[in-house]
């Protein structure tokens, strides 16, 4: 493992490290651990190669480590991997384009932290959001936002621990359904801007620090233009459908609604809005790293799913405004950064608990309204098969001149 100082780009309290990945190496289809990669690399000469650095680790978190990874070391042996408890194993090796003997495999995309997005990353993300917001059919923002709640039918799965009826098993579909949801939305973004990925909002906050929404999503404008990540339009919901329930036609129904829900949302807003930390039931602050770690320590999927869903709920309630109501939450661009964080937590938990899947009876459960291999629970278990994985940042590193000449 190599520690790489990155002044100015490494978040405080973090260290950048370089690692190889033995199992999930997507940029190079050779098992590094077995040594086959090195054998090919030597025979190929590798006049140029580069390492893609895609990990930034929180300190002092222990992570897995490789030893003997220097290919210049005469006594070099295949690297040995020591799994760690952290969120590590994120660097892959790319031999560049001058190695035609290497089979071509599709590279997965990296979902990165909002905090480490480059200006270019953010520009691409905003361009993609602007593009999908300009499409009114099923490729567009309104369609995807509407899938989650209104207009009916709403498909999202929340709080599906339906054991109270006695004859229903616990239904841990919250994570798979939302993974599929993000996948299909991200595909729609990539249809507009190639390679763009959904970033994750790490809302874990030190209790001593103020809870905030990241600038990328909190700024109303960027370079004099409206920031598409600040708010989303709400167009797809027919007024009649909203008014039927919320601004109902008779005073009696409206009073009943107030009694049932305790809140009068008023007319359908034209755009999303947030009230962070303002609503009465709001938590004092966003979840802490301890909250997250407690969930990651869960020993089985159902426990983990429910713990992380409750953390998820608290963030929705803290953000407030349209984010705090299921029917309209997904119209807020911040929704996707929040849920990408939730999906990342599942990914991290999966790395710690390989093979700990949802109950077998659910693996073939459909995830409507989606179609295709990613539209059943079993199809969502491997993020790599959906074309992505998680990193804090991606920093291409070119070989030195000396390395390139060797």
């Amino acid at each position: 493992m190599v520690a790489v100082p990155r002044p100015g780009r490494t978040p405080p309290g973090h260290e950048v490290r370089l690692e190889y990945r033995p199992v999930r190496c997507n940029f190079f289809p050779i098992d590094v651990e077995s040594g086959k990669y090195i054998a090919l690399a030597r025979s190929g000469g590798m006049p140029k190669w580069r390492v893609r650095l895609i990990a930034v680790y929180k300190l002092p978190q222990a992570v897995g480590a490789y030893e003997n990874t220097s290919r210049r070391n005469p006594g070099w042996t295949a690297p040995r991997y020591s799994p760690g408890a952290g969120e590590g194993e994120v660097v892959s090796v790319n031999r560049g384009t001058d190695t035609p003997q290497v089979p071509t495999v599709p590279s997965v995309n990296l979902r990165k932290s909002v905090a480490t997005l480059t200006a270019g990353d953010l520009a691409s993300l905003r361009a993609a959001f602007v593009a999908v917001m300009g499409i009114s059919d099923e490729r567009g923002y309104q369609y995807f936002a509407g899938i989650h709640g209104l207009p009916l039918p709403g498909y999202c799965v929340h709080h599906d621990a339906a054991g109270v009826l006695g004859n229903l098993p616990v239904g841990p579909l919250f994570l798979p359904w939302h993974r599929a949801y993000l996948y299909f939305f991200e595909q729609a973004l990539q249809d507009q801007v190639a390679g763009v990925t959904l970033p994750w909002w790490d809302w874990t906050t030190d209790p001593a620090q103020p809870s905030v929404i990241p600038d990328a999503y909190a700024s109303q404008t960027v370079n004099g233009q409206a920031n598409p990540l600040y708010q989303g339009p709400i167009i797809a919901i027919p007024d009649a459908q909203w008014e039927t329930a919320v601004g109902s036609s008779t005073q009696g129904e409206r009073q009943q609604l107030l009694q049932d829900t305790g809140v009068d949302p008023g007319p359908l807003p034209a755009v999303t809005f947030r009230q962070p930390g303002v609503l009465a039931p709001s938590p004092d602050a966003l979840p802490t790293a301890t909250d997250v770690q407690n969930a990651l320590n869960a020993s089985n999927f159902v426990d983990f799913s429910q713990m992380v869903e409750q953390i998820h709920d608290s963030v929705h309630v803290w953000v407030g405004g349209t984010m705090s109501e299921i029917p309209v939450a997904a119209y807020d661009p911040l929704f996707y950064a929040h849920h990408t964080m939730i999906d990342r937590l599942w990914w991290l938990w999966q790395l710690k608990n390989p093979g700990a899947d949802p109950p077998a009876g659910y693996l073939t459960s459909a995830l409507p309204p989606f179609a295709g291999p990613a539209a059943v629970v079993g199809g969502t278990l491997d993020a790599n098969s959906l074309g992505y994985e998680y990193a804090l940042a991606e920093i291409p590193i070119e070989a030195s001149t000396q390395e390139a000449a060797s």
Partner: protein
Amino acid sequence: MQPFVSRPIGLTSTDIGVTYNRADLIFDGVDHSGASFALRVFFNNPAATDETGRSAENGYAGSVYVFGHGGCFGDEGHCDVPTERRPFDARPPHQLTPAKMWITVTDALRQVAQHEERLTITVVHVIAGNADQNRLVPFQKISLVTYA
């Protein structure tokens, strides 16, 4: 809104076990059909309200936050949760099926058990807007479960 205040329960080893490693307060039948809300739990503070500070001194043990559906947006019957399931009905459960939620209260319980022999659990239902002050707490059952 009236808090839920439990009858006192015993905290002896016979009641909750001596060697428990984890204690959960489990809410069954949580109604998430309405606006988002919080359930704040206080131990041995039956007078707790939504204005009570969330501190250990006040017996605060934790909160459950519920992301709500915000009311019913369909026609009549759209939000009626079936109370039983027909044989061969393999459709997913109704979206508004009441949920099971919990908070882990191990440390808070241990703290109380050090000094008290009985425990009263108060659950304060905090919801935005003009909530009905006489509304019942939005769950059907509450249990304290300890695990070895």
